């Protein structure tokens, strides 16, 4: 494997800025790696090597000219295919958007490009971010680099797998109910869902507007923080964006000091129903935090029991409306337009052919939940539960600084195991959903391999809104102590991919 592939983004950026290596050679190494392993992993839906190399040479030229560049300039990155980028397709993992080239950049994309990051391509995902395994992608599943017979999590399985397969040192994910954190957990990587409003949703093709949030994915805590800082901050194009400075996430990631930090273990998220090895690694990590000076207490958030049910009413309701625009009239797939059919018939045929089963399932549920006569019982009740969850968090954060839980109840399961069982699939997001409903900050950090299957386990940290820095403080503390214990990064243990020579 090329020497650049395992390095952190922070190190690569420092060497590029100091002209010890060029962005072009780093980018080329990653493109070659994608060429070699992505046929098997399938983390990417679209790769534009020419464009990436041109962007890399541009950074190299700016560095050579002595121009100041950002702290991640020249570092290659994968962008989840739910964020628009001019000059590239955006499919959202759906047939219905096949061939669509958006005419504008998402705010996250624009900030990445302005900061000199080199976009390698667009990463695979469950169709319209609906799923926890990436098996709902219309373009085929992504495989988990730890065991390619297993799922990489979802919806952002492509972004997580690209990191674990060393195809990119950084990726962008989006998290609606766990789509950044759950894939991070099952691939042994770092994934952060910023506070709702902390990163811009402009150009993020909406699943559920009140829940979606873009965030950084990386192999190290510092890399995630550096990326968070690049994409975060107020955006006047997103009305729900918070007009306040980005919390000092980089400072927190460099510090990693948890002395005196009050850590609450959520009683409702753990125990019975959790895979023993997941619970074991979680408990050990909590003990480690305690030994590092954190004060650990148990906290109860009783409304979390209803979170999954409320989520699966609010999300489908919003998505049934958000996905109405995919009607074949202005962009994307068009089916049945033979001159004899009405616009309405073409809309129906296109949506029938262009959407997958899970998307249709949620559109139907959401349409029903918003119908007059059912609105109060379903959407209305779910919003009340949401309020209760916000209150549970508020009460908990009166006594603790952060909450922790396992990120997901199990490690990566075999591909195909849950495709016919939506409820089992939904259960993967049991621990991650409450944070989306409340709009606070949360993250998943790797805490080891489950003894029974040797697969990665993630620990979730949740912080109050706009206290994203606390996530990084906890993550960095764990990373430092665990790397020492393990004698290196957890990802050093990912099986070597047989590289198909290009």
């Amino acid at each position, binding site marked *: 494997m090329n020497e650049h592939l395992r390095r952190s983004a922070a190190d690569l950026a420092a060497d590029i800025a100091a002209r010890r290596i060029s962005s072009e050679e780093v980018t080329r190494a990653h493109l070659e790696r994608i060429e070699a392993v992505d046929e098997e992993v399938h983390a990417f839906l679209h790769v534009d090597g020419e464009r990436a190399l041109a962007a890399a040479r541009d950074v190299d030229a700016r560095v050579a000219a002595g121009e100041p560049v950002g702290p991640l300039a020249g570092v290659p990155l994968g962008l989840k295919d739910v*964020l*628009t980028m001019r000059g590239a397709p*955006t499919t*959202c993992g759906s047939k219905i*958007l096949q061939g*669509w080239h*958006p*005419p*504008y950049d*998402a705010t996250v994309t624009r900030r990445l490009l302005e900061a000199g990051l080199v976009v390698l391509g667009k990463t695979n995902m469950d169709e319209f971010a609906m799923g926890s395994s990436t098996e709902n992608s219309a373009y085929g599943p992504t495989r988990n680099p730890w065991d390619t017979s297993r799922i990489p999590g979802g919806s952002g399985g492509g972004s997580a797998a690209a990191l674990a397969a060393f195809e990119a040192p950084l990726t962008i994910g989006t998290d609606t109910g766990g789509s950044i954190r759950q894939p991070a957990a099952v691939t042994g990587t770092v994934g952060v869902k910023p506070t709702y409003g902390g990163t811009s*949703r*402009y*150009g*993020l*093709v*909406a699943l*559920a*507007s*009140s829940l979606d949030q873009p965030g950084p994915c990386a192999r190290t805590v510092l890399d995630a923080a550096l990326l968070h800082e690049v994409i975060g901050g107020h955006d*006047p*194009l*997103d*009305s*729900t964006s918070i007009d306040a400075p980005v919390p000092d996430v980089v400072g927190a990631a460099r510090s990693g000091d948890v002395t005196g930090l009050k850590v609450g273990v959520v009683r409702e998220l753990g125990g019975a129903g959790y895979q023993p090895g997941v619970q074991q690694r979680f408990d050990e990590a909590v003990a480690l935090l305690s030994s590092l000076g954190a004060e650990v207490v148990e906290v109860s958030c009783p409304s979390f029991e209803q979170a999954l049910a409320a989520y699966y009413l609010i999300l489908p*309701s*919003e998505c*049934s*409306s958000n996905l*109405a*625009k*995919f*009607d074949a*009239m*202005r*962009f994307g797939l068009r089916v049945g337009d033979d001159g004899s059919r009405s*616009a*309405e018939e073409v*809309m129906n045929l296109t949506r029938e052919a262009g959407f997958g089963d899970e998307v249709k399932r949620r559109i139907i549920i959401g*349409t029903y939940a*918003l*119908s*007059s006569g059912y*609105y109060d019982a379903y*959407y209305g009740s779910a919003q009340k539960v949401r309020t209760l969850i916000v209150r549970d968090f508020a009460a908990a954060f009166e006594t603790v600084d952060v909450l922790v839980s396992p990120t997901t109840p199990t490690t990566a399961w075999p591909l195909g195991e849950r495709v016919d069982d939506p409820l089992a699939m939904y259960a993967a997001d049991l621990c991650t959903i409450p944070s989306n409903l409340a709009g606070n900050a949360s993250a998943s950090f790797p805490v080891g391999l489950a003894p029974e299957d040797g697969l990665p386990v993630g620990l979730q940290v949740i912080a109050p809104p706009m206290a994203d820095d606390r996530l990084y403080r906890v993550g960095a503390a764990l990373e430092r102590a665990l790397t020492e214990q393990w004698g290196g990064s957890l990802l050093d243990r990912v099986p070597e991919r047989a590289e198909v020579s290009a």
Partner: protein
Amino acid sequence: MSAAVMDYDEALAAFDPVMGLEVHVELSTASKMFCGCSTAFGAPPNTQTCPVCLGLPGALPVVNRTAVESAIRIGLALNCSIAEWCRFARKNYFYPDMPKNYQISQYDEPIAFDGWVEVDVDGEPFRIEIERAHMEEDTGKSLHVGGSTGRIHGASHSLLDYNRSGVPLIEIVTKPITGAGARAPEVARAYVAHLRDLLRALGVSDVRMEQGSLRCDANVSLRPDPAAPLGTRTETKNVNSLRSVERALRYEITRQAALLREGTPVTQETRHWHEDTGTTTAGRSKETAEDYRYFPEPDLVPVAPSREWVEELRATLPEQPHLRRKRLLAEWGYTELEMRDVVSSGALELIEQTVAAGCAPQAARKWWVGELARRANETGSELDALPISPAQVAQLQQLVEAGTINDKLARQVIEGVLAGEGEPAEVVESRGLAVVSDDDALGAAVDAAIAANPDVAEKIRGGKVQAAGALIGAVMKQMRGQADAARVRELILARLG
């Protein structure tokens, strides 16, 4: 199907009409409700669009602050309460001219509610209660091609123009209007005219009904008497002139009355008004109407206008229309009757602007309520839609007062201005309409007239000075009406006196 109608007076003798009016006002903000695109009318199709108003995946709305300000000012001018906190909602339905397949509107939390206005119906005040005024975005426009009617039925294909998509709208909804009796159609017309004047005075909209910037949907139902419960209503759309408001309601009342007299129930439905035939036809039936699945718009944060802001905006409100009318009546020295004519012909604003341009109030009234109203009536357009400006009318009057033209020539000048021939002075020049008062030219014409009418000339010589009129007429005819009549008279008397 052409429905039978009942004679209007007969209908009103048998039934009591109840109306509800929904008026959509396009705001004249520079940019759209949720994006920075221009709202200018008449641009080439799809040139004023962006990812937001095209509803492209990923794009997000941002509320136009000026539109909220206009909404609050409209609410205040309608004597409404202004919400301390309100949200936008999504109204979900599929239609190709609505790019997101939902409209961002307001549902159960309008920005303004519970107001009233007092309108003038033939000099008498009539109070109309306002239910609400809320903000929403306009849709694009569909053009159905290939059919005979321009409607979607029978068309071979449709063209879509999204320039209007996202233009800010305020929808103003009345409470049921009762007690108008036979005057119901006039009350409705007076109400829409009142809104138009009010909105124009507020400076928030172009209020051009012919361009669709003020659109009215008229609901009406009949009941046997004012004590009876409300009857089944119809909603007539596409009522886009003051005259149509009155005509459409009059027609619907007579149509419903005919049905009810036969014992046929009125169907609750949307109907379309046809200006050409003066009738309405059934549109979508409300029983099969879609469920709009309203829910709070998650892409926007609530609108919470501070009380300080609302009070600041209240201070910017123009004079109330009825008070303004009273003031102008005194300033201009009109009679009550003259003022009523001015208001009912929609000339108040125009006269005010004409007076501001230097014209005497009586002269301004004479032109607008006389010649110009007659021409507007002939072409079936609104007075303010005539292609002549108050400044041009003022200039016309100056030309009359300077003796450059007389009243008769002035009518020809108006014709030229309306035909797009330029400013009044330019029309006088290009059409050669100036009055001739040059003694040489007039003297020659006078001599010719005397020579041609020796008997008349003899009478004048004999002291019958009033016979001079016949000679003046002859001179005028000879000079195509452009002679200075007073000077001609002097010249005739000087020669024959």
